[in-house]
Each structure stands twice: as structure tokens, then as C-alpha cells.
């Protein structure tokens, strides 16, 4: 008989560092939205319903360009595809007693950090524990977005202009450290960047939207990477 961790309070306790971390990242999202003209209530609803950083930031870029919905849907699908893998992996770790509704509910809260905790700390995790683990980070993610948006509305224009780079700075902070350590990640990253720059150069000649460029670069770079440098074991965070 395997041990199942299923205490709501334990989940809540374990989630405190995640929630605090989310406050600062979602603060940036709220800032970005409001400084680029998106109403704060839209930013807050997006955070509450999406609970993902890269997906929301890229979604924001496409919304600002008034991209077609199909492009938005495709890019969200590709960017967030890793959650499908985590979700799949988590399906092996959760309490076997959990019914379909329980599974459908907790899947909402799968993020990189929550997945890492849920899958690595206990032998098996139950519904109540997972609810506890998810509720505080969701609250912080939404609250942080609101605080960031509110703070930005009070800022002078010059300062707001300088915030445009924040999102990209964050992306660099996500991709550079693993690229430093792993040669194959570095190659895939470079390939994707070169592709993206090439598409930018041909844009004046061929009509092609940014959202579609991102999809193409991702499929090509990750596809070639997976073909040339398959990895044996995937480690999450």
C-alpha cells in the first residue's frame, strides 16, 4: 500500500514559496498589459484563467497585434504543450481514488513549479493536497497582476516606455542558464533565433505575421533538435 499525501493544509504550506514567487512575475504581467493599453480587468481575468507566464506574455503580444484567433490558439497550444507532458506524468503520481471530475479540476493548476512539487515530494498525492497546493499560487498570480497594473497606471510615460524590455529580460533569464549548461539546448536556441531573424528580414517581401513566425520557428527548431539530439531522460526543473 503506497502512502498518499492528502492533507489540504500540507498542500497550502508547501505552496507558500511558489505563491510568493508568482507575485513578482505576475506583477510584471500586469505592468506589461497596462503599459501597452490593455484594461486592467482584462489582465486580471487572463491571469486568473490561464495561470501561465510564457503563454500569457506571448498571448499579450498577439492580442496587441490583433492577430487572428486561430493564430492565438495555435501559439498557445505550442507554447503550453509542455503542460500536456507534465499532466501526463502527473497522471501516474496521483491518488488512484481520484475520479474524473477531481482530475479535471486539479489539472487547471498544473504549472512548472506546482508540477515539480506535486511530482517530486511525495510517493502519491491526493485531491485535497493538490487543491491546497494550487489555491494560494492562483490567488497570488491574480493579485500580483492587479497590483502591477495598478502601479503602472500611476507611472509617468517615460518610465512606462522603459518597461517594454521587461518581458524579454525575463525570457532571457529563463533560457540563458540552461543554454549555458546544455550544448543541445544551446544549439536549438540558436537555430530558433537565427530562423526568427531570417523571417524578420523577409517580412517586407512576404506577408507573414509574428504569431505564425513563432509557431514555425518552434516546430522547426524543436523538431530538428529532437531529430538530431534526442534526449534519454527528461528532468523537470
Amino acid at each position, binding site marked *: 500500500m503506497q502512502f498518499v499525501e492528502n492533507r489540504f493544509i500540507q498542500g497550502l504550506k508547501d505552496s507558500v514559496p511558489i505563491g510568493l514567487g508568482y507575485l513578482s512575475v505576475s506583477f510584471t504581467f500586469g505592468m506589461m498589459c497596462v503599459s501597452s493599453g490593455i484594461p486592467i480587468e482584462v489582465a486580471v481575468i487572463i491571469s486568473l*484563467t490561464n495561470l501561465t507566464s510564457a503563454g500569457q506574455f506571448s498571448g499579450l503580444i498577439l492580442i496587441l497585434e490583433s492577430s487572428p484567433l486561430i493564430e492565438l490558439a495555435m501559439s498557445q497550444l505550442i507554447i503550453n504543450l509542455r503542460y500536456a507532458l507534465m499532466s501526463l506524468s502527473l497522471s501516474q503520481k496521483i491518488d488512484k481514488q481520484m475520479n474524473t471530475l477531481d482530475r479535471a479540476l486539479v489539472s487547471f493548476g498544473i504549472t512548472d513549479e506546482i508540477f515539480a512539487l506535486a511530482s517530486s515530494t511525495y510517493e502519491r498525492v491526493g485531491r485535497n493536497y493538490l487543491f491546497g497546493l494550487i489555491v494560494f499560487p492562483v490567488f497570488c498570480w491574480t493579485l500580483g497582476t492587479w497590483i502591477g497594473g495598478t502601479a503602472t497606471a500611476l507611472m509617468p510615460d517615460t518610465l512606462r516606455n522603459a518597461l517594454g524590455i521587461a518581458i*524579454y529580460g*525575463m525570457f532571457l533569464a529563463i533560457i540563458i542558464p540552461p543554454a549555458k549548461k546544455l550544448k543541445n539546448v544551446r544549439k536549438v536556441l540558436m537555430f530558433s533565433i537565427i530562423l526568427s531573424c531570417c523571417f524578420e528580414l523577409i517580412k517586407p517581401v512576404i506577408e507573414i505575421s509574428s504569431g505564425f513566425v513563432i509557431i514555425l520557428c518552434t516546430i522547426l527548431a524543436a523538431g530538428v533538435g529532437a531529430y538530431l539530439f534526442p534526449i534519454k531522460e527528461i528532468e523537470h526543473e
Partner: protein
Amino acid sequence: MNKYIPYIITMAVVTYLIRMIPLTFFQKEIKSPFIKSFLFYVPYAVLGAMTFPAIFTSAQSLIPSIIGTVFALFLAYKEKSLLTVAIIACIAVYVTEILL
């Protein structure tokens, strides 16, 4: 507000289905090394393509953007936190804008 509703719904539904379908309906593990590797590389490929060359025009004018990029690259290489890298890049852009 109304013009944003289709975008909000699209993002929320797609993101939720990606998380929900495997956990709710699949019990087997992915075996294909190609798909596993593909999924592993996806975040890097996405973020790389989204960051470049867009970062060079992120602060309206070119030179402040490049200065900000250099700072961000350096701090990311030093493995500073997401928030630190983002804030210092903004400060670098802001200071450059004022000086120019």
C-alpha cells in the same frame, strides 16, 4: 473590454484543455523519444524566437533597446532571478533614454 472577450476565451480554453486532457483521459506514459525530446526543446525554441529580434525594438528606439539587451544578457548569464534581470534591463533602458 468586449473586443478582448474572444481572446480571453481562446487563451483560457486552449490552455485548460492542454492541461486537462492528458491527466483526465490518458493513463499510459509517452514512450517515443522523438516526442519527448521535441517537448523538452519547445520552451527554448519558443522563447528564443519570441525574444529575437523583437527585443531590439522593445523600447521604441534602437540604442536604449540594445543597451538594455546587453545588460539583460549579462545578468541572465550570471543566473540572476527573472525579476532582477527584467528590472535592471528596464533601468538600463530608462537611464540611456534620459542620457540621449
